[in-house]
């Protein structure tokens, strides 16, 4: 599940990409509790706009490079029991903490001590509890409704671009709609 090929790729690139990612997150305001909670209160759509424009840009480039044979996808396998239940638990934590694992690193760089002293310690405890329970969860709930490594084009049994193009159009329409309503 987590055996990462990347652990053999030069670590310096991880650091460089991280610095750029952190720089972008801070410039976007995504390192701030108020911005993240503003999104979950549906009063400030900054986080969704960042995510959707990143997905739009990333998706077109990644699928172009995949079509050209330059790269391979690197997917997470999944199951209903893992993604739905885990996603909802994560969402509760997201709301209570007001940061996520990436943005909390950015929040620490921004000087936010609730992130460093409270949130970071909590995340380390939470992942530790998961590791302790993992042997019991692994073959049970985490495997419920298992669908493995699957992309939307594979699910619908169509060419990649039959999904990429409509998703790109939908994201554009959603962003235009958000701007039109002044959100």
């Amino acid at each position, binding site marked *: 599940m*987590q*055996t*990462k*090929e*990347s*652990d053999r790729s030069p670590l310096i690139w*991880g650091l460089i990409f*991280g*610095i750029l*990612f952190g720089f*972008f*997150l*801070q410039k*976007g*305001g995504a*390192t*701030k*509790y*108020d911005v993240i*909670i503003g999104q979950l209160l549906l009063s400030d759509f900054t986080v969704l*706009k*960042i995510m959707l*424009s*990143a*997905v739009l*840009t*990333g998706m077109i*480039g*990644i699928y172009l490079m995949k079509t050209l044979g*330059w790269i391979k*996808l*690197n*997917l997470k396998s999944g199951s209903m029991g893992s993604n739905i*239940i*885990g*996603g909802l*638990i*994560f969402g509760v934590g*997201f*709301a*209570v903490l007001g940061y*996520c*694992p990436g943005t909390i690193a950015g929040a*620490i760089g*921004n*000087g936010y*001590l609730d992130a460093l*002293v*409270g949130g*970071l310690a*909590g*995340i380390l*405890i939470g992942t*530790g509890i*998961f590791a302790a329970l993992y042997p019991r969860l692994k073959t049970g709930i*985490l495997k419920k409704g298992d*669908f493995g490594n699957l*992309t*939307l084009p594979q699910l619908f049994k169509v060419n990649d671009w039959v999904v990429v193009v409509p*998703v790109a159009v939908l994201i554009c329409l959603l962003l235009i709609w958000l701007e039109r309503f002044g959100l």
Partner: protein
Amino acid sequence: MELLTEVRWTPYAVGIGIGILSWFSFLISREPISCSTSFARASGGIERLFRGKKVELKPYYQEIKLVVGWQGMLVLGIIIGSLISALLSGDFHWQWVPSLWASAFGNSPVLRVIIALIGGVFLGFGARWAGGCTSGHGISGTLQLAVSSWISAICFFIGGILMTQFLFKVIA
């Protein structure tokens, strides 16, 4: 250079920047941008300091391996990149209690830290249960059109929006 000292960029500029970053991350490191595995590794690493090598034998740590890795460097980089951006624009400041929190729950740093800790426990636990977080599933997985990531990302927001409504509309 003025661009670098601005406090905020538009969310579109930031999003496009992150999207382009993901291209290079795939091309150069064959790896999507993701964060939460590193926290699980750090947690196991800290436990190993106290309880010794036998911690590595836990099945979960056998799978993810207790190493720093590319992704650990990415998370370290996020702290540095955010610090650079905040210092360049004068947006860096030490802060215990965010203003939106203070407006609903008061100015106590102790209360804020305790609740942040509890939130962190759910966040860390949920991220490992779902196999990823807002970056690994929410951005890198959805842009690859992974089914697991679209389901997870939608559930992150359903859980997050409902819980935030409860905190700010019912409790506060």
